[in-house]
């Protein structure tokens, strides 16, 4: 257990946590407004697809990010309209757009580029050192030397906290998840608030998908989010619907995955597949451990009766 090992483990935990954090923040926004965020997985996947295709064709990361946001927000818009205007079941709609995104991205990547193995290869974004802090021992290189989207993710955590708890619009959004009738009585349209929250949340989750492509892998593969959206959803619950809580939960899942990856290198009596189960089992255990204590937005899952 030397310091280098610890620093590497920390760095890996942060790297793995970042897409989860963005996914969780997106889900959080939607759930605080009263809409279950089961579709996050699909939105992250659409974001990853947009980031890869946009950067590849547009030739710039900025185009890629714009496409990631647009793609994910597009999927989120389907959810927003279906669950508010048509009062579709929120959970199952979320699952449906997951399948839709999986099929659509896989279909389009083959349709656009032909062949069986899509040939998108992108350079992964490099790290930016935060002045002074990055010179600290151990923590410096592990935590304070990060690629741009990781910095953005941390900024969004802080901004979302301030937005939800310090602004009028944030109050309205939270009220839509607790008591939409009161929002209506106060002169706002809860349906609109919820639609905006779901679509904005989708855009943020799409950035999570973009992180996977632009900072981690440098390419798009079918179903590459592989359950991260659902882990992010678990993090929202474990983090009790608060941005910092979700961040902490994602870091725990990130650390679990980082340790799991490191354990695969070691000769252990158990199969690496058993170790791969750790993050999912951990999420299940933490959720079960939290039990009845959690207090979720009161009106979540309940369609608002527009007049």
């Amino acid at each position, binding site marked *: 257990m030397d310091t280098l090992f610890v620093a590497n483990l920390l760095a890996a935990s942060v790297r793995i946590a970042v897409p989860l954090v963005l996914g969780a923040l997106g889900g959080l926004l939607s759930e605080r407004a009263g809409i279950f965020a089961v579709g996050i997985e699909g939105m992250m996947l659409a974001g990853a697809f947009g980031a890869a295709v946009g950067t590849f064709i547009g030739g710039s990361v900025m185009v890629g990010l714009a496409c990631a946001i647009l793609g994910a927000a597009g999927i989120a818009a389907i959810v927003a309209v279906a669950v508010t205007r048509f009062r*579709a079941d929120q959970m199952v709609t979320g699952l449906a757009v997951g*399948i839709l995104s999986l099929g659509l991205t896989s279909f*389009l990547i083959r349709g656009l580029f032909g062949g069986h193995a899509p040939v998108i290869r992108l350079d992964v974004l490099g790290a930016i050192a935060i002045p002074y802090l990055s010179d600290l021992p151990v923590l410096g290189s592990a935590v304070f030397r990060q690629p741009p989207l990781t910095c953005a993710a941390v900024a969004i955590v802080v901004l979302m906290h301030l937005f939800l708890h310090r602004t009028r619009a944030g109050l309205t959004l939270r009220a839509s998840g607790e008591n939409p009738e009161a929002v209506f009585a106060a002169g706002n349209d809860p349906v609109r608030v919820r639609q905006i929250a779901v679509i904005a949340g989708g855009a943020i989750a799409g950035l999570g998908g973009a992180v996977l492509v632009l900072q981690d892998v440098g390419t798009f593969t079918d179903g590459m989010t592989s*359950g991260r959206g659902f882990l992010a959803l678990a993090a929202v619950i474990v983090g009790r619907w608060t941005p910092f809580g979700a961040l902490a939960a994602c870091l725990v899942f990130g650390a679990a995955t980082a340790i799991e990856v490191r354990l695969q290198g070691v000769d252990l009596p158990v199969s690496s597949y058993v170790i791969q189960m750790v993050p999912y089992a951990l999420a299940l255990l933490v959720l079960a451990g939290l039990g009845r204590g959690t207090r979720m937005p009161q009106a*979540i899952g309940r369609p608002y009766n527009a007049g």
Partner: protein
Amino acid sequence: MTKNAITGSPAAGPRLARLSLALPASASFGSFGRAVLAVLLAFAVAAIPILMAGKNPLVAYAALIAGAFGSLDNIAFALNKSTPYILSAVGVALCFRAKIINIGSEGQIAVGGLAASYVALNAGNLPPFAAVALALCAGMLAGALWSGIAAAIRLTRGVHEVLSTLLLNFIGVLLVSAALNGSLGEPGAGFPQSPLFDESVGLPTLFPGYDLHAGLLIALAAAIVGQILLWRTRFGFRIRLLGGSQSAAAYAGVSFAGGVMGVMLLGGALAGLAGGIEVLGVHARLIEGFSQGFGFTAVAVALLAAAEPLAVIPAALFFGFLRAGALAMQRDVGMPSSLVDVIQGLSIVFVLCAMGLDNRHQRV
């Protein structure tokens, strides 16, 4: 007293069952028409990505239909594909009736297939019929155990079954991989798969010369039994009551815990049976990833069938033929088979929207 779904308390759950409850004979044409309309709409909208990919939708759909119905072999293949859909969707439909969203078919099928394979590989001295029956029972037990975990966590710890069954899917699929890369794997196969089962431990084929196995009959029987169970037994009445109104159910002395555990165990057992039938009837061995995507398809099928066990049969056949046709389409004209997922996802969204609207009209 508004309570919420993730904490597992009454009220505010999904509104699927309310609609389904109001669906006896007189309304059944409405739900059938709705499903057909949703599917047609899905095909129409899916033409957009086909055009975006620079292909002709009519050519794609013609190849899909030819692939599904082109020959008796194709039809047999599609019927085999439909079999696990029927079995797992009957379970999901019964869960829907109690307002339980069990999306764990994937994991339940995976562990069911795993358990059945374990028995099939070690059933050396048993008479063939006993070996098959034992393997399928093992699959059912494993599937029920898997869904039982989710039910137990829901009932004791209040974790919503959507999340728990989902997380259990990942774990179940990984269990299969772990077993295949461990003691169940075929040495030197180069692919994670078990050795072939003994020929006597397989499902018989229905017609000589065609690969249509007897699992289809078991699935059809399960749908019929499910229908009778739902509409003609005390248990069925109880789960319909639970799905309709939990306060009414509580007033009538129907136990929430008993109902949830009952439908979940039943759903898990059916999915586990589907897993066992899949490995015994189609592959004759356990293969990594054999359960890919079943979980979501089962939800789609149950929804299209408006949670009516008998109606699951046509809905599952539709998805089975769609999947089989898509594979042929990919092989013959190079059109990616993931088109099916697009159509499937769109169909569910459209059905849900129609159901949501129905709900509003009923309420007014």
